[in-house]
Each structure stands twice: as C-alpha cells, then as structure tokens.
C-alpha cells in the first residue's frame, strides 16, 4: 500500500476525531431543572380555625393550626401541625393532632401525616380511648380512619397493638390487620 493512501487514511481519522471534539465542545450546556417550589397557593391563613359541615349541615370536623395554604390547582388545603376534632353523635368526639394534614376540597378525605395522636373522652356512649399511630387516612364525614402503620390503642384495662388499623368511629368497630397483641389487665378488686 503506497505512502499516499496511508496519508489519506490518517488524515480522514484525524478529521473524524477533530469533528467529534468540536461537537463535544459546542454541545448545549445542561440547564438546571426549572425551580418547582411548593404548589402555588392562591391564599394562606395563619392561626385559623376551619369548621367543615356535612351534607345535613352538622359539624363534621374542626381543624385549628398555625398555617394553612390552599392550592389553586385542586383546591386542597395543606396544613402544618394541625389540631383537629372529629364530631360524632351524642358528644362522641375524637380530638387529635398530627404533624401535617392535607384535606381535599370537598372535605371528604384528610391525610394526617407523620405522628398522629387521637383520643376520645368517656361519654355515655363510649369509654375513654387513645390512639397513637402514623400517617392516617381519615374520612371525616363517614367518621372512618385507616392506616398501614403500627397502631396502639389504649383504654382503661386494655392495650391493643397491631400493624395496620381500620376504625369506624360511628359504629365503634375496630380492626387490626396484623401482628396483634391485646393485653387485658386484671380487674382491681373493689
């Protein structure tokens, strides 16, 4: 193979390398991802109290918290460190708090985020009970709660523990879905 052909092959290789370098040099610079902050809220409230009514106009639940932001895209509410009260018949109310709450526009669903503590005082209808768990989905108007997290329910004379819980505050039905440990104290002799 004579010298001229070798020289042409070498030149072509060099040319290819040079153009590849050029393409790399003039590639478009990666722009930083556009800043996506928290959803834009059309209004925020500070130190507010929210009373939600059900279809019959009865008080379904109350939420008080230092801050609330209403999202303009789906009308949901984002609340920090809420304290809430789920109203029930005959004063059978549950009070509680959580780290965050997200409430749908129509108030039918409430996601209580982080640690959740709820308790019910003794009434004629039901006895004192305290619930400690995490990440609860609440359906205030149906007065139902559910979580996949471990839950502890304390009542005078018993402590119930399980993983995963469903509760119907209206019919006083309670379900623990796994790893159940129910401890019943001995009655104190009168």
């Amino acid at each position, binding site marked *: 193979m004579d010298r001229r052909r070798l020289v042409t092959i070498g030149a072509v290789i060099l040319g290819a390398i040079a153009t590849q370098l050029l393409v790399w040099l003039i590639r478009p610079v990666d722009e930083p991802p556009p800043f996506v902050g928290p959803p834009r809220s059309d209004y925020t409230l500070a130190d507010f109290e929210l009373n939600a009514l059900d279809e019959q106009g009865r008080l379904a639940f109350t939420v008080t918290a230092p801050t609330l932001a209403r999202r303009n895209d789906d009308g949901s509410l984002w609340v920090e460190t809420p304290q809430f009260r789920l109203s029930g018949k005959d004063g059978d109310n549950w009070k509680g708090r959580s780290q965050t709450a997200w409430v749908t526009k129509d108030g039918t669903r409430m996601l209580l985020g982080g640690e959740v503590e709820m308790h019910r005082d003794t009434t004629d209808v039901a006895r004192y009970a305290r619930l400690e768990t995490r990440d609860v989905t609440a359906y205030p108007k149906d007065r139902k709660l559910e979580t996949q997290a471990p839950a502890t329910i304390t009542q005078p004379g018993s402590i*119930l523990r399980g993983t995963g819980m469903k509760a119907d505050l209206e019919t006083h039905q309670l*379900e623990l879905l796994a790893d159940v440990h129910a401890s019943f104290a001995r009655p104190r002799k009168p």
Partner: protein
Amino acid sequence: KKSDQEQPLDVYANHFQADQGKQTTVLSGSVKLTQGTIQGEADKGTVHQDKNNQIQRVVLEGKPARLQQQLDDGGGMMRASAHTIDYAGESATAVLSGDAVVVQEGRGEFRGERIVYNTASGEVTGGSESGSGRVHLKMLPKPKDPAKAADAETKK
C-alpha cells in the same frame, strides 16, 4: 396455678376485629393466650368483655384448641384440648366441648364430649349438660413412697 387468676391476660393473633358496641372481639390466625402459667392456642378466639372493658370469657376454637397450665402442688402440668374451650378467668372455669381431653401429669386423664375444668383448684367435672354424655376416666395409682416400699420388703 391459683395465682394465675391474678395475672393480666395477653392474647396474640394475626387479625383482630372488635365491636365495642357489643363488647365482643374476634381474633383469628395463630391465636395464643397467656395468663400466668395458663397458655392457650387456637385458630380463633372470641373475647367477651363487660361494660367496663373487663374480660368475661375467652372462647377458643380450633382443631383442636389447646390449653395448658402448671398445677400448684408438685408443679406437674395440666394439658387440655377440645374443639371449643370456653375459658372464664373470673370464675376460673374452662368448659371444654367436642372431643375434650384433660391430662393431669401424675394424676390421671379424662376424656369426654364435655369436661369442666377449674383452673384454680384443678377440679375436673365431666358429662354433658343433659347428663347423658359419657366420660372416660383413667386415674393413675398414687406412686408408692420408696422408703415404705423398702420397709414392706424387709418385713416379708
């Protein structure tokens, strides 16, 4: 043991469904019950409570349901099994029904359709409520005192 009655009752299971309105709780899936030395095992357990949340009865059902307890004097074990064991801690009574068997180490063995066992005194009562059920009783002879046996030998 007599002291079992004074201990808290613990129940473990895979699933728990309580109807606080009816004061009834149903536990299912590898149900285990402990109260002092009393230990129970079953497929399903139903806990009945009174208005003050105190336990009235625990009904264990299984194929079979089992209950065991350490006896007071001598520390032998009582082992019982039946299709249904209705245990009332308050009155220290366990009613076994359906292929009921109660074995008391060193004392005897009781079989029948229905046996009532007193978890405080260890007393066993057999026969159905209608009085027609048959009970099969096998009492072990009282073990001879080794010292007396030797005396009897030398006197011969």
